[in-house]
């Protein structure tokens, strides 16, 4: 790699020069996230400027190879970039399931044509992807999926239903698990396939959640015709790709909480609960709950750091992401229970301007999905029991 100190200086200077001040503030609403795609609109001019500058440097995907639109940074450089962005509070220029999930899978399992076709478009934010995994009768038990892809010449013809497809109604393409061999055992006979959401036979229907938002859809496939060349990896071996990708997803979700971001919980609570003459929160029980939470949060943060370092040292257990996913999501739920308790009545309002449209209770309800999506907490514990502890029959 380049001289690390020099790279850090250059990076910092470039960010200082190119990141608009508006893009250095914490995100406060959905619109602050830019997802890209055919129909994407920027919510502000600084958002556009920031995205385009970063895209041009390949820094929407800093560690992807340059030939696919990435920044070509090595691990150490990428860490420096992340640190410098965090230090200045710079927002991520592009959020995308293509970056977080499909990209790593294509880099590992895709053929050259597939990489060339899809990766640059992901990096440039031109195509927005969604993930077609879960099905109505295969929630935690993903491998029991029923959507079938029947061979017809050079194509597969896909029929079935997906559920919990994130933003399927906004997505341009889908990466999808389908059953290509109905006679094989549960984990066999599954393929990982890509297709355009505008294909004939694809319909989506948003699911209204308890938070009032609809980030997920039901997605229906009625005889969707997809070229066989769109299968990633080997036909009937899609489960390998899916597993690889799930680990990425879990690592991502475990880090999704607002660890260390924004004001400390105890001060947020003091706003609504008040403090005594010694400066202690005027609700001793809540104070204890917050402090216990912050201890666990700091410990998780150390564990996340250690997980990365163990991986670098080649000492990490491949199933450890399940442990982190479990703990991170349960902790994030706890954070929001505390925020609701601290907010009291103010945190119960659902629509007023005062409450920013009920931002806190809606976010609270949203967290309840953390321990379900990407593998339930129960499934995570089962994985740890089986793969790490090697308990019998787990």
């Amino acid at each position, binding site marked *: 790699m380049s001289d690390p100190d020099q790279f850090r200086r250059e990076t910092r200077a470039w960010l200082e020069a190119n990141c608009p001040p508006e893009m250095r503030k914490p995100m406060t609403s959905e619109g602050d996230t830019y997802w890209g795609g055919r129909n994407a609109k920027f919510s502000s001019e600084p958002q556009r400027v920031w995205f385009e500058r970063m895209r041009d440097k390949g820094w929407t995907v800093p560690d992807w190879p340059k030939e696919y639109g990435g920044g070509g940074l090595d691990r150490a450089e990428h860490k420096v970039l992340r640190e410098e962005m965090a230090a200045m509070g710079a927002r991520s220029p592009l959020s995308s399931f293509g970056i977080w999930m499909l990209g790593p899978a294509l880099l590992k399992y895709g053929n050259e044509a597939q990489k060339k076709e899809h990766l640059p478009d992901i990096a440039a934010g031109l195509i927005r992807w969604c993930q077609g995994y*879960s099905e109505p*009768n*295969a*929630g*935690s*038990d993903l491998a*029991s999926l029923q959507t079938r892809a029947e061979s017809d010449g050079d194509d597969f013809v896909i029929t079935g239903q997906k*559920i*919990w497809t994130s933003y399927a109604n906004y997505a341009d393409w889908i990466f999808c698990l389908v059953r290509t061999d109905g006679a094989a055992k549960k984990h066999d006979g599954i393929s990982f396939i890509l297709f355009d959401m505008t294909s004939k036979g694809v319909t989506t229907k948003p*699911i*209204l*959640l*308890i938070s*009032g938002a609809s980030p997920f859809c039901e997605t229906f496939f009625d005889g969707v015709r997809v070229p066989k060349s769109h299968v990633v990896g080997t036909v009937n071996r899609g489960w390998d790709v899916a597993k690889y990708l799930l680990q990425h997803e879990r690592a991502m979700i475990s880090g999704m909480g607002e660890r260390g971001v924004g004001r400390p919980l105890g001060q947020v609570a003091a706003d*609504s*609960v*008040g403090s005594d003459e010694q400066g202690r929160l005027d*609700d*001793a*029980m*809540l104070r204890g*709950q917050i402090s216990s939470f912050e201890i666990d949060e700091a410990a998780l943060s150390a564990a996340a750091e250690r997980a990365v370092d163990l991986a670098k040292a080649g000492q990490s257990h491949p199933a450890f992401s399940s442990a982190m996913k479990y703990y991170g999501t349960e902790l994030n*739920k706890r954070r929001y*229970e505390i925020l*609701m*308790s*601290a*907010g*009291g*009545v*103010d*945190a*119960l*309002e*659902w*629509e*007023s301007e005062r409450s920013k449209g*009920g931002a806190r*209770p809606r976010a609270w*309800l949203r967290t*309840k*999905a953390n*321990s*379900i*999506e990407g593998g*339930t*907490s*129960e499934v995570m*514990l089962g994985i740890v029991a089986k793969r790490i502890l090697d308990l019998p029959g787990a």
Partner: protein
Amino acid sequence: MALVLTEEQSMLRDSARGLISDKAPVSHLRALRDAKDATGFSRELWKAFAEMGFSGLLVPENFGGSGLGAVEAGVVMEEIGRTLMPSPFLSTAVLAASALTRGGSDAQKAAHLPKISDGSLLAALAVDEGAKHRPLQTKLQASRSGNGFKLNGAKAFVVDGHTVDLLIVAARTAGSAGERNGLTLFLVDPKSKGLAVERTAMVDSHNAARIEFDNVEVNADSVLGEVDQGGALLEGVLNIGRGAVASEMVGLSEEVFGRTVTYLKERKQFGKLIGEFQALQHRAAELYIDIEITRAAVLKALQTLDGDFANASAAVAVAKARAGTTATRAVQEGVQMHGGMGMTDQFDIGFFMKRARVCQELFGDSNYHADQLARMKSY
């Protein structure tokens, strides 16, 4: 007094359950929410409630009520908790009726209690001002003015505050925030000049309001109980309200738990009913035990309110605190065990989670009551 319902109380429960499950299942609340109904509950249903004697449950017989007690109020609240039916039962039939019965002059009782009984008058108690329930922190100022008082300040979380005909307002006539002395309750007409009501749409789609008082004038007759001495009256009424909300949470917890156990027996994953998974079995068993123990604690509090009112505070604190933690656990396990389906608005389970959160906050959350209990026991 045996810690079980008497035959009369069981009959009351059956008739409440019959009416509520028939006329106001969860879909009733859902429909009101989706229609953004301006009242937030069904006046027609309240009439039916009144006809069955529920609105006058706590009103003495000589004012047209049934003269029953906290246990009976709890019986009805528990059924309300099962379907989350929105109604003025808590605000009017429990809180206002108790406040008037316990603190009212003969004239005040005669003026309002018969109307509460027959369902024609709705009333609400306005106590909280800040984000958390801290009745002694009441700051809303009532200053002497001519023959009466002028009220200045604001109230929040006034249950049913946007639809009622009468407000019972906790105000400070002396002392400063934090003191028990100097609190006075006032009967206030919500149409008074200077009074502004803002309905607040709540997470649970139930009714609440914020109310501002800008030089609202009331006459001396509007004092409920004694000037400066309203603290004890208020605390007593709040205790009845706490017992009632705890009962609602017991009903809510049991309903969510029942639905969850049913789901465990229906839903298949990994080729098994999920209820066959021992980890879920043990969690379900723990929750069952939790609910049963909470039920006993709540009934104990209600019986103590009826039998030894002056010494009921500890039992009430135990009941409200336990009911809050149990309901929180029940809805959390309910959503988690329902998996993705529990997150959808289409399933009712989210309604229970939302209501449980509001009930937790109402009249002091589990932390508040744990702290109160420690104070009562001098540690």
